[in-house]
């Protein structure tokens, strides 16, 4: 005999049949079906029978057998719906506090969910606007060399892009860009040729003419073909065109950068406003006929260009990535072998290429291209999880409150069942009720979200708003209300509708829920989430404080950086002397390089003299600085001396940092020689200092003597920076540069700027933690109110028998303390694990110490107890007579 289950016809089809069949035909045809099914089994076996049975049922679905429309139970639905809504509404009004807590908690959760969803949507909306979206790629170098910290980067040699276009038919177009601060890319002093006064402008980039086509840049004036085709042409943004040439077509006008009138630029076009992109530029300077030094365009020595390509629709990217390896072998490696560079083997072994879809670039944090705007994919995912958690918390709250109140609804359920309600009717009733609540909550939550968005936008550094004009807003809110209404309502409705009339009428269920463990685990879930979020917020905050106050190896306070100072030219030294004469200025130095973001970086390969053909060498920053730079920045000299122009041979002097000495393997570096394109004498070693953000390890660095002008003049001032100080400095500047207004920044502020994203993450975590606690406490408040109601008689009896207020309080709160302890045991390790992996992003980070956990645990426990105690104390103090007299 086969399994009994298999011998009954497929339930789904049988139910379908029962649903549609005419009532008076139902019995005998169903019998026929049963009989037919057992015949089919004998004939075709079980699975064959099930398939043929389904077919039989479908063939029965015909007008003569389907019952008439008005016999379907569908048609009293509107009436029942109206009835259910009315009952729900009355229940809502009956318990106003309770309903307010339910809706409030729900609304806060939904608001948080919506806001975070908008944030994520915004982060994901970058570079999604291209017509040829899936054919545009950025080329990325990939290195599998475990010795490298950076495994993906975007810089290529000048010849690479033209070769791609020539050699591979699947590359429809290839273009190069330079986005980082390099020559004219980055920032410049800008003026029309007829003007005399310069204006500081940022966001310059170099681009091949093809880039206009590849990136589908819309032009208001000029044409894609011609805008950048002439040497020394550039295109400007609509914003800048309106600023400098209001109401006219600026194509053909001449502008001057950095007062260099010998080489003016002609405007070739105006770009319309661009949708969100990882690329940000206001000015694109053509790369047509540009050669940064003699032979640069054909030299494989250096990698300075980012490459973007548009492929043919039928191109196979993986195959192409393979084919590009030919360029690696025929050009890159050949060049290295010709110059006897030991790197050739490393490249042959480890280098590959990746075509990265343009839409993925913004959230890609793996690839090193710090000139681009990047979001943080990890943070986005983290926030997504938090958003879901908060929504879940809100749902859990709702479930808890709904079921806790079940005793009050038990009688209603009993009576309804006696009068003839089916369980399905009751389930429908409670679901309607929960959807009613969720709809109100979504409405309130949307209003809350709209109110909170400006503040959140500020914190997140974004401009977020609800898409009021989009067609999908209202439908998606309605769907949201329905989905979470059903989700939150499903357990309570099944739970409530399961009451047996007899039990209810006998009063057996008056103690409320049968399964406190379910509610307890929900409360535990809420507090676990809260504790995790509180610990996370604490860790992020501490890490932030650590970064901002860590001894970074130089003194960043009281330094004013005057930017754009290269236009001083020959007058630089005099300007520095004049500044030095001011009483509040302690020291003045200048350089292009400072240990904060927004100043130059430079990478050079160095070898110990005589070993350049043998070793791989060390990639190091080469910083050209004024003689007094090291003492002025208060960077500590460990060995040797600073530059000294009075000494002969000082022009070949180099001061290196500890890391560089270590990487070069120099035990006693003073007096040794290193070389890049020429030889240098090491005269000093400085203590390591942080010049990149702390996510990165301190890299090798070498100081060289720089002379004359540089982009930044930095002054260390005495005492607190004041308006008077700045006025005095500005006065000196204006004497030298009347045509250029002074731009300056305090170094400590620029430093803090580098960590604004950490700050943001911390703030958002803190807000989420507060919200989670708030929601959990709202729930707890509701639960404790209910508990007090339930246990009033018990407590009164205890009191009459002589229990003290403290004992009663302990009795009432013991359960909650237990739950919080369990939450802590669960949440602590979870938070530890999550935050440990977050901290690993930072090479320099704090360790998690026990008191983070203690503080978070105690804080959550205290808040929870406070919430519960209001009710508990009230009951403990109340006169027993009040609750017992009615008995």
């Amino acid at each position: 005999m086969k399994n009994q289950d298999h011998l009954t016809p497929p339930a789904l089809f049988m139910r379908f049949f029962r649903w549609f069949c005419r009532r008076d035909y139902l019995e005998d045809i169903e019998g026929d079906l049963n009989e037919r099914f057992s015949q089919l089994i004998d004939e075709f076996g079980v699975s064959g029978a099930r398939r043929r049975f389904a077919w039989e049922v479908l063939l029965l679905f015909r007008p003569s057998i389907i019952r008439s429309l008005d016999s379907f139970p569908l048609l009293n639905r509107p009436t029942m719906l109206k009835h259910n809504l009315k009952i729900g509404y009355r229940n809502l009004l009956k318990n106003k506090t309770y309903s307010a807590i339910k809706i409030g908690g729900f609304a806060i959760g939904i608001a948080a969910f919506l806001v975070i969803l908008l944030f994520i949507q915004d982060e994901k909306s970058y570079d999604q606007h291209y017509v040829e979206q899936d054919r545009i790629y950025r080329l990325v170098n990939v290195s599998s060399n475990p010795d490298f910290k950076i495994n993906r980067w975007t810089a290529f040699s000048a010849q690479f892009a033209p070769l791609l276009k020539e050699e591979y038919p699947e590359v429809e177009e290839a273009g190069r860009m330079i986005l980082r601060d390099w020559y004219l890319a980055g920032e410049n002093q800008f003026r029309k040729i007829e003007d005399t006064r310069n204006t500081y402008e940022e966001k310059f980039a170099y681009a091949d003419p093809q880039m206009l086509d590849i990136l589908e840049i819309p032009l208001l004036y000029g044409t894609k073909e011609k805008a950048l085709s002439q040497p020394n042409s550039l295109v400007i943004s609509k914003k800048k065109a309106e600023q400098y040439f209001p109401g006219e077509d600026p194509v053909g006008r001449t502008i001057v950068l950095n007062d260099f009138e010998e080489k003016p630029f002609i405007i070739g076009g105006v770009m319309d406003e661009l949708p969100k992109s990882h690329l940000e530029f206001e000015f694109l300077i053509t790369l047509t006929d540009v050669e940064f030094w003699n032979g640069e365009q054909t030299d494989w020595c250096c990698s300075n260009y980012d490459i973007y390509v548009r492929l043919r629709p039928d191109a196979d990217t993986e195959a192409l990535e393979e084919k590009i390896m030919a360029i690696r072998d025929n050009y890159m490696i050949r060049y290295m072998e010709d110059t006897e560079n030991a790197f050739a083997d490393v490249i042959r072994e480890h280098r590959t290429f990746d075509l990265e879809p343009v839409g993925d670039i913004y959230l890609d944090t793996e690839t090193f291209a710090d000139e681009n705007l990047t979001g943080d994919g990890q943070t986005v995912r983290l926030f997504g999880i938090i958003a879901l958690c908060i929504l879940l918390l809100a749902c859990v709250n709702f479930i808890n409150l709904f079921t806790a109140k079940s005793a009050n609804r038990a009688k209603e359920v009993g009576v309804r069942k006696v009068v003839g309600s089916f369980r399905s009717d009751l389930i429908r009733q409670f679901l309607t009720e929960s959807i009613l609540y969720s709809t109100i909550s979504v409405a309130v939550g949307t209003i809350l979200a709209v109110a909170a968005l400006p503040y959140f936008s500020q914190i997140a550094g974004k401009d977020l708003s609800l898409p009021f004009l989009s067609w999908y807003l209202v439908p998606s809110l309605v769907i949201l209300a329905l989905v979470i209404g059903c989700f939150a309502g499903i357990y309570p409705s099944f739970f409530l509708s399961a009451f047996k009339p007899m039990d209810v009428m006998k009063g057996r269920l008056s103690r409320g829920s049968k399964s406190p463990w379910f509610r307890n685990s929900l409360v535990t879930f809420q507090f676990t989430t809260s504790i995790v979020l509180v610990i996370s917020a604490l860790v992020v905050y501490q890490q932030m404080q650590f970064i901002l106050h860590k001894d970074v190896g130089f003194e960043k306070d009281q330094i004013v950086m005057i930017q754009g100072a290269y236009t001083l030219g020959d007058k630089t030294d005099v300007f520095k002397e004049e500044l030095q004469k001011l009483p509040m200025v302690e020291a003045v130095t200048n350089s292009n390089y400072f240990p904060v973001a927004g100043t130059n970086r430079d990478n050079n390969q160095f070898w110990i003299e005589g070993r350049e053909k043998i070793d791989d060498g060390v990639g190091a920053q080469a910083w050209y600085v004024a003689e007094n730079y090291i003492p002025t920045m208060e960077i500590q000299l460990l060995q040797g001396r600073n530059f000294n122009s009075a000494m002969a041979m000082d022009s070949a002097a180099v001061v290196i940092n500890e890391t560089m000495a270590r990487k070069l393997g120099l035990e006693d570096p003073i007096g040794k020689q290193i070389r890049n394109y020429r030889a240098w004498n090491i005269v000093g070693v400085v203590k390591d200092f942080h010049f990149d953000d702390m996510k990165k390890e301190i890299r090798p660095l070498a100081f060289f003597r720089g002379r004359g002008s540089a982009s930044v003049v930095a002054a260390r001032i005495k005492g607190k920076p004041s308006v008077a100080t700045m006025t005095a400095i500005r006065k000196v500047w204006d004497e030298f540069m009347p045509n250029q207004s002074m731009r300056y920044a305090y170094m400590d502020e620029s430093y803090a700027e580098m960590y604004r994203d950490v700050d943001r993450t911390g703030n958002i975590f803190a807000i989420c933690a507060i919200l989670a606690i708030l929601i959990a406490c709202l729930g707890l408040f509701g639960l404790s109110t209910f508990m007090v109601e339930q246990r009033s008689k018990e407590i009164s009896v205890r009191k009459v028998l002589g229990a003290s207020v403290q004992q009663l309080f302990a009795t009432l709160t013991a359960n909650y303390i237990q739950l919080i302890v369990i939450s802590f045991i669960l949440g602590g390790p979870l938070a530890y694990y999550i935050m440990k992996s977050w901290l690993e992003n930072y090479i320099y980070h704090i360790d998690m110490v026990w008191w983070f956990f203690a503080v978070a645990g105690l804080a959550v426990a205290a808040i929870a107890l406070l919430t519960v105690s209001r009710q508990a104390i009230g009951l403990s103090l109340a006169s027993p007579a009040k609750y017992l007299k009615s008995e």
Partner: protein
Amino acid sequence: MSKHKLGELEEIVLLVVAILHGEAYGIGIINEMKERLDRKISIGSLQTVLRRLEKKGYVISEFGEATKVRGGKRKRFFTVTNFGKDALQEARDQRMKLWNAIPQITFER
């Protein structure tokens, strides 16, 4: 013109009901048709035909006893009414008349 109108399937089903004589119910009829005519018919089409015949008054039906085999569901037995018998008779007579009218030549090769 005759007052009876029987479709081909209706006629066959009616005949089978008559053959089964009081034992004709859904699956029974299907099995009989399969056996005698090697003709397969779905429950859906059979029931449609049966109900139409019942509506026209050619058959009547009544429930039998509940048995265990069919999931406890009773069978509905169909029997041919006199009116139905007339209809069958007439259909047959009409056929015979037509058969007899066929000249011999028609079948010659």
